[in-house]
């Protein structure tokens, strides 16, 4: 048995984009894994044991090594299983991938979810501010099949798990269109192309269930 083999377990949640993106990477690389569903918001004793600091999914367990945080897990998977690489080799390209992944999980998540739900200055303003951030992504994916270039990569998995199948479901529930096709043709094209990729398609949560889930999450967030 080589180092790379051995049990891989993933503690995740069907509705979590952070969890789904790890599954995309595992599927892309053909890595068999045991999936354990966490019935959030209740946190199981296993979750609290594996990730006592953050108490969040996803958590990867590989050969008894425990790793939380989706970006870290994706990089670990890429370094441990070298087939179908998801990060570029070139240091600059790699740093840009990390930069965009951070931008998406911080800025895009803020404007695509938090600011939109709280809408302190009104919904129209929130949508405009969101579009300003999405414009950066539109530019970044222009002229490329994927953020990763010709094949899907780290940024596609980060953006792909969160934008079309999580944030967009919230927007559907709120009956708004944050990234309309006429203003964001490249992003919309990228979304359509993503859905054709098997390892992505298998990780798309059920649409209606996700809309319902995102509406519940947004209600909780508004009251928080």
């Amino acid at each position, binding site marked *: 048995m080589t180092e790379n083999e051995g049990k891989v377990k993933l503690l995740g949640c069907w509705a979590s984009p952070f969890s789904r993106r790890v599954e995309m990477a595992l599927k892309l690389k053909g890595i068999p894994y045991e999936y354990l569903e966490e019935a959030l918001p209740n946190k199981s004793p296993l979750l609290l044991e594996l990730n006592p*600091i953050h108490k969040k999914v996803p958590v990867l367990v*590989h050969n008894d*090594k425990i*790793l*939380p*945080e989706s970006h*870290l*897990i994706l*990089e*670990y998977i890429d*370094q*441990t299983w070298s087939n179908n690489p998801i990060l570029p080799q070139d*240091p*600059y390209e*790699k*740093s*840009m991938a*990390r*930069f965009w992944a*951070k*931008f998406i999980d911080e800025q895009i998540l803020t404007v695509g979810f938090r600011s939109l739900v709280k809408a302190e200055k009104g919904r129209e303003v929130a949508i405009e501010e969101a579009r300003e951030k999405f414009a*950066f992504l539109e530019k970044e994916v222009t002229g490329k099949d994927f953020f990763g270039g010709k094949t899907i990569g780290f940024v596609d998995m980060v953006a792909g798990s969160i934008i079309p199948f999580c944030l967009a479901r919230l927007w559907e529930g709120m009956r708004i269109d944050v990234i309309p096709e006429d203003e964001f043709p490249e992003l919309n094209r990228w979304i359509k192309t993503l859905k054709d990729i098997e390892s992505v398609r298998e990780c798309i949560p059920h649409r209606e269930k996700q809309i319902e889930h995102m509406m519940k999450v947004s209600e909780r967030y508004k009251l928080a």
Partner: protein
Amino acid sequence: MNQEEQVQVLGLWGSPFSKRVEMVLKLKGIPYEYIEEDVYVQKSPMLLKLNPIHKKVPVLVHQGKSIAESLVIVEYIEDTWKTSYPLLPHDPYERSMARFWAKYVDDKVMLTLWKACWGPESEREKMVEEAYDGLKYLEEELGDKQFFGGETIGFVDIAADFIAYWFGIAQEASGVMIMTAERFPKLQRWSQNFVRNNIIKEVLPPKEKLMALFKAQFGNNASNEA
């Protein structure tokens, strides 16, 4: 790739984020040109061009390309100049754990420490509690090692530079004592080892200047309550 080509750093004299980049360049013996950006007064056209998304320092420029976000820059430097003074372990899991702790410092600990000193009064008690919790995990992680990186300064030590130096000064300026030697003896010992390192101490901003900056920008808690 000619790695001898000029490296430029756009930075801010007092910023722990900016200093992370300088510390790493100096540890690895990489010469660079430093350009001071007084971001509070005016953001230069150069900064706005090199980092249009965040408009923040630090920014690294190398071979005509610019990179923003301090820890992303540090990883770039590590990937490009692999052999001199490696900051990250070789093993993928150990590497991931180093990144985990660096992220923990960056995302969770730094903000709670800052808010514990200068946050709104109503949140102060909660922030102090969170600061204690955050530091407690770091104290455990450090253990009896000289540095988070082991015997030499590594990625996590660099990420935690604020804790080693700036925070002590912030505590003095605000009058809020959180990271005491009694509560966190290991972190205290580590801070001293870190700031005494010959290379690190060349890079750190002068204490008096920082103290004056903190007091001026944020006032003193006692006077705020008056």
